[in-house]
């Protein structure tokens, strides 16, 4: 549903850079902490933490039984029912809280399954090459182009009353291909690096090279793939639940939307019925995306935020960094009124 937009695949380090001396030998030490210091990643992690907490304690702190009926039918938000009630008088706030566990469980289980598969298939294909690569790549591409949602719908509809675990397995099995592709490309480029070549020349066994040389260098890519798949799995589970494919006894945000749609919440202007579930999904998705942006920027510094393209000089001028036109700061004391210091087309006479 969302398009995986990891840029990692496309940024192969060390490509095409001109031999302009790199300017950051002193920054090397700070790199390690950069990921956590990255505001995007930090925000994402905090929000994700809240969701994980709710997944654990949600069912205990829910004020009502999410399936328990009451006489307050289709009531708007109130002190008793923060998010209002359904056509059966069920408390929507409790449904959201209880549903968080199912969403997180399916999201992370499917994410883990897909990531494991993608590492196995992608790294194997990239490292071994040859016929193995050809067949694994073909498999990956086939799975990639077959539309996953209709396939999931068919598989899960055939399996009656699919449990959360089963749904997670189906999602995991159908959504590993994108990451496998990315990992294959990364492995291919890593394999040609000196340190891997050196290990091979010194007779290290294949699995030792993969585990100790390749995987540590693929950590960021794998992490970003995991996060991306979790987003995708959450959206898929909710999509399936929305069209009625879910376990019969559990609640998740998609189930809430299924009942809201089925019971004409729109026609009754019961906005509280469908808005909270959607916002819960959107916030979770945004948090996960933020984590991924953090990883992306961590891996390829070129993408790091635009904050550094504008700089203040000691004298207080703003200078915009820009490719193709290096800024010129004059050391003269004359005040400059323009943001770009040299902006007058005057041709000066040489002295």
């Amino acid at each position: 549903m969302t398009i995986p937009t990891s840029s990692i695949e496309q940024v192969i380090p060390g490509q095409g850079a001109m031999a302009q001396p790199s300017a950051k030998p002193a920054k090397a030490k700070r790199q390690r902490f950069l990921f956590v210091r990255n505001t995007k990643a930090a925000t994402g992690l905090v929000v994700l933490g809240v969701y994980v907490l709710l997944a654990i304690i949600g069912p205990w702190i829910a004020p009502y039984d999410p399936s328990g009926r009451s006489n307050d039918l289709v009531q708007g938000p109130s002190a008793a029912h923060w998010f209002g009630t359904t056509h059966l008088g069920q408390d929507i706030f409790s449904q959201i809280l209880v549903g968080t566990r199912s969403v997180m469980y399916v999201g992370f289980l499917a994410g883990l399954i897909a990531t494991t598969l993608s590492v196995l298939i992608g790294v194997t294909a990239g490292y071994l090459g040859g016929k193995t690569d050809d067949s694994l790549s073909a498999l990956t591409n086939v799975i990639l182009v077959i539309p996953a949602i209709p396939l999931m719908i068919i598989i899960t509809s055939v399996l009656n009353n699919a449990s959360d675990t089963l749904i997670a397995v189906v999602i995991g099995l159908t959504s590993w291909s994108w990451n496998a592709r990315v990992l294959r490309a990364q492995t291919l480029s890593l394999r040609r690096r000196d340190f891997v070549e050196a290990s091979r020349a010194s007779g290290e066994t294949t699995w030792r090279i993969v585990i100790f040389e390749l995987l540590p260098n693929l950590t960021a890519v794998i992490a970003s793939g995991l996060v991306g798949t979790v987003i995708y799995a959450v959206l898929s589970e909710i999509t399936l639940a929305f069209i009625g494919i879910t376990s019969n006894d559990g609640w998740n945000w998609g189930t809430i939307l299924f009942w809201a749609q089925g019971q004409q919440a729109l026609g009754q202007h019961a906005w509280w019925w469908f808005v909270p579930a959607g916002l819960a999904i959107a916030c979770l998705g945004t948090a996960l995306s933020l984590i991924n942006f953090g990883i992306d920027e961590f891996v390829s510094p070129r993408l790091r935020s635009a904050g550094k393209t504008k700089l203040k000089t000691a004298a207080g001028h703003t200078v915009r960094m820009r490719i193709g036109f290096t800024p010129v700061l004059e050391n003269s004391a004359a005040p400059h009124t323009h943001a770009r210091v040299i902006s007058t087309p005057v041709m000066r006479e040489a002295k």
Partner: protein
Amino acid sequence: MAEPVLEIRNLNVDYGLGDRAVHAVRDVNLTLHRGEVLGLAGESGSGKSTLAYGLTRLLAPPGVITGGQVIYHPAQGSSYDVLALSDNGLREWRWAETAIVFQGAMNSLNPVHKISTQLMDVLKAHEPNMSAHSRAARAREMLKLVGISADRMDAYPHQLSGGMRQRVMIGMALILQPQVVIMDEPTTALDVVMQRQILGQLIELRERLGFSVIFITHDLSLLVEFSNRIAIMYGGRIVEEAPANTIYRDALHPYSKGLLSSFPALRGPRRELTGIPGSPPDLAGMPAGCSFHPRCPKAFEPCGSAIPVLGRPDTPDGAGRSVACWLHPAEQPVG
């Protein structure tokens, strides 16, 4: 000596701003004269490429020019400071007055356009009134000049060999007949035979067309062979500048001597290859005084505390050369 065409005055280039800025080029003064080949040598990280990109304002972020002037003397009309040009003025100046041959012939050409397109879009930008027909004719003529047959006009970069691509770049650099051509390690990616073939061709073209060349390389033996004058950079500064054969015969700065003994000479007497002990300085943490002194075999008392000034040395053939070394204190500073 001939009149100057490009004068670099007190040029300073930093990477980054504020306290964390790294000074990559410091107080460089250098003059390129009409018709000469000026060689710029140094190890990687010495600031030679930064100098070239800085003076054309092509340095990528976080590069910043913190001061200085680049005075350009056109064939006709009055001189001006390139660093003070407006964006449009700079665009007009680029390529028409000063063209560059970059080091990566592989990546210098846009992979999705035909080489004819890439030759002709220079003409389109700088001579908008030129007809399509004469643009194509000029492009063909330039290819012929660098020894590529006109039927390769419609080739894409990936269809050409490395040497051919670099010839295309040279042809492209000369298409507007600039007065100055900057060559940044133009042949590093090529094999030795191809290197010499292309450089020989370029020198021959220079004699015919009369442009001046700034030739940047770490390969001093190439410079000795192909350039008139050589400036040697270390740690962002010029440490020695002299006519090519003077440097070759009798380099004054210990660093220049070290560089010369790192390469086998193709011609002339054999000499011992020794190289320079130690590694190039970290631009972020420059040693005090002469930045070469930690590696210098002849370092003595003043070297660690004060920076030597580039100036005319106290030697008998001191005229026409300058050096920044406490062994040869300057009689007359340059600048």
